[in-house]
């Protein structure tokens, strides 16, 4: 008949409060520090691989997924106080930015990978390779018209037909490579001429590939593996990859890579993560699931891909790519492509 005693009510209220604070505390609770990976590669791509590592190593692993550049910038801001142990990035530029914060890797880890896909100072090592290609719609574009170099792309023939992802990291890395290869002025000129062709812009590479496959664009600047992925899903019958033969930045081979932060208290676990990434199982995963080029353990890429050594690449050291990255963003914006 009567209400609860106010004291009881107060007690239950306090209980709710304590519970709430407890939840909050539990969330930020201490415990065994897990291995924290900053991953600039998306969860869709590397999530299964990390799950496998969790299982095989029995380690507790936590991942922060974000853009590679964003994470590199965060690492620089966080400095030596960062919680991160491992930085996994999708391009050498981001790795280069964060390299001052990274520890030298043991040589047995480093040596598994060809020297052009790792840091001069042995602070990061490539784990998989992607090649910039031109995707094209076979119905719209004659093979004979296909460009041999990025300069051929500026042909008015392609007006309104090119698909771009100007904010995407791999496009920016390509621009950075061009800056290193040709200088800023030439790069800006190239970008401006490209902008004059009214390219269609896309948020990422994959929709460009889908667009080429559906005839929405004639050409697109992408990485090689999106088409293979689309084909695995049953699409990709109309589009094809074209590898530029001139040895310019248009056929940049870009490794994704990994390094260990020098402040890490779990560098042993971090090293075993890198060894895992370079193991045959993981390399096979890159070859078969993400259609990238494996860089170690003698694993062969997908059958439809040309061997990595047959692709002419620009004469730049990937360890320097980061020095041009910020300028690349500026130039893309200045050319009006952003």
């Amino acid at each position, binding site marked *: *008949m*009567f*209400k609860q*005693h106010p004291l009881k009510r107060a007690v239950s209220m306090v209980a709710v409060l304590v519970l709430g604070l407890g939840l909050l505390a539990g969330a930020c609770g201490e415990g065994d520090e897990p291995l924290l990976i900053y991953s600039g590669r998306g969860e869709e791509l590397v999530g299964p691989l990390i799950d496998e590592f969790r299982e095989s190593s029995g380690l507790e692993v936590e991942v922060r997924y974000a853009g590679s550049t964003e994470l590199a910038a965060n690492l620089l801001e966080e400095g030596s106080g960062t919680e991160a142990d491992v930085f996994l990035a999708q391009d050498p530029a981001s790795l280069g930015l964060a390299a001052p914060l990274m520890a030298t890797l043991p040589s047995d880890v480093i040596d598994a990978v060809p020297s052009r896909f790792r840091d001069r100072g042995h602070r990061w090592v490539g784990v998989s390779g992607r090649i910039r290609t031109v995707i094209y719609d076979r119905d719209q574009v004659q093979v004979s018209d296909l460009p041999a170099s990025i300069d051929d792309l500026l042909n008015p023939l392609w007006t309104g037909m090119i698909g771009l992802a100007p904010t995407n990291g791999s496009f920016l890395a390509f621009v950075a490579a061009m800056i290193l290869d040709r200088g800023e002025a030439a790069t800006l000129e190239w970008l401006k001429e490209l902008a004059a062709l009214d390219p269609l812009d896309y948020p990422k590479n994959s929709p460009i590939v889908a667009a080429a496959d559906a005839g929405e664009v004639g050409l697109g600047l992408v990485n090689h593996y999106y088409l293979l992925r689309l084909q695995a899903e049953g699409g990709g019958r109309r589009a094809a990859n074209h590898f530029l033969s001139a040895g310019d930045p248009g056929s940049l081979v870009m490794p994704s890579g990994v390094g260990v932060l020098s402040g890490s208290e779990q560098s042993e676990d971090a090293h075993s993560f890198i060894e895992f990434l370079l193991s045959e199982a993981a390399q096979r995963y890159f070859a078969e699931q993400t259609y990238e080029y494996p860089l170690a353990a003698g694993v062969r890429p997908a059958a439809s891909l040309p061997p990595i050594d047959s692709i002419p690449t620009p004469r730049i050291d990937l360890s320097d790519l980061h020095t041009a990255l910020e300028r690349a963003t500026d130039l893309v914006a200045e050319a009006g492509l952003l």
Partner: protein
Amino acid sequence: MNSSADHRPLAAHALCKSFDATVALDDFNLEVESGSLLTVLGPSGVGKTTALRILAGFEMPDSGTVRVNGQTVNGPGIFVPPERRQVGMVFQDYALFPHLNVARNVAYGLDAHHRDHRVSRVLEMVGLAGFEKRMPHELSAGQQQRVALARALAPGPQVILADEPFSNLDAALRKRLRAEVRSILREARTTTIMVTHDQEEALAVSDQLALMNEGRVVQTGPPDHVYRYPATSWVAEFLGDADFFDAHAKGGRITTPFGTFPTTRSGKVKVMVRPESVTVFPHAQGVAVVVHREFFGHDQLLSVKLPGKITLRARCWPQPQLAPGDRVAVSVDGIHIFDEPRTAPTPPESPAPGAPIPQRVVIPPLG
């Protein structure tokens, strides 16, 4: 500190309170006898509610003391919060808890011990047995009022404070309910301080009246006493109808157009006449002329003009039938004489300690 003051359920001494520039209370004094109903009466804005809220502990006085049953609850360096004062309160808007039913409202201030018994006892007392499960919004205004009273009575407080408890009711209900409330309080033998601006209500229900003006109590006493012997012309005018005129006292008497009255004073004085002490009858050679008539059925109110620019009102039987312009004779069976301005000789009896000394002389007419 005398012992009688110690045992009073509630006593306030020399309370002062200002809000910014406004003075609400200025040397406010009040004491209430155990078991009696004291009404603080005064026009709006005179500080009544502030006084009540200080007694209840909702406001802090700037200075002065309050004692409940001899214990100081407001004083220098002392402030006892409302919940520890044993002072019940009935609010103008009743302040019933809308989310609790009648029984829970009444039980709110009770311990678990004997709660059910006490709730039904109090609800019975206010005539609401069987309403336990009703929610406040399902009750009429009068019922809500009685629930508020029951809730305040339930914990058995030293004193109940009621702030304009009847002002939210319509006229008919108000009259019925105040009689009921009076008898409930009497049955419960509770000490009550009520605040109102309604003179009729104050006169009808109170054991003691405290007239308040400009932040202080100007007169206390039983209602009929205060009515009959107002301490000041302000009290006289506020409490009931009164007509005033200036007169001159000389040689122990005051001469008026309606007779001569004895007085001990001399010089300029103010004379007050209440309408009910004026009798009027038709008379062709009467000194007065009827100027206005209001007829109420059970009586009538006549305004008559006398020589010397004096206008008096007379409350009399429905008869005689008089009309404006009729000549009448006037007799008055008592006047009040006030000094002008209000300074005062000492009166024979003093109604309450602490209250300002009333100054009035009531004089039957000569002959």
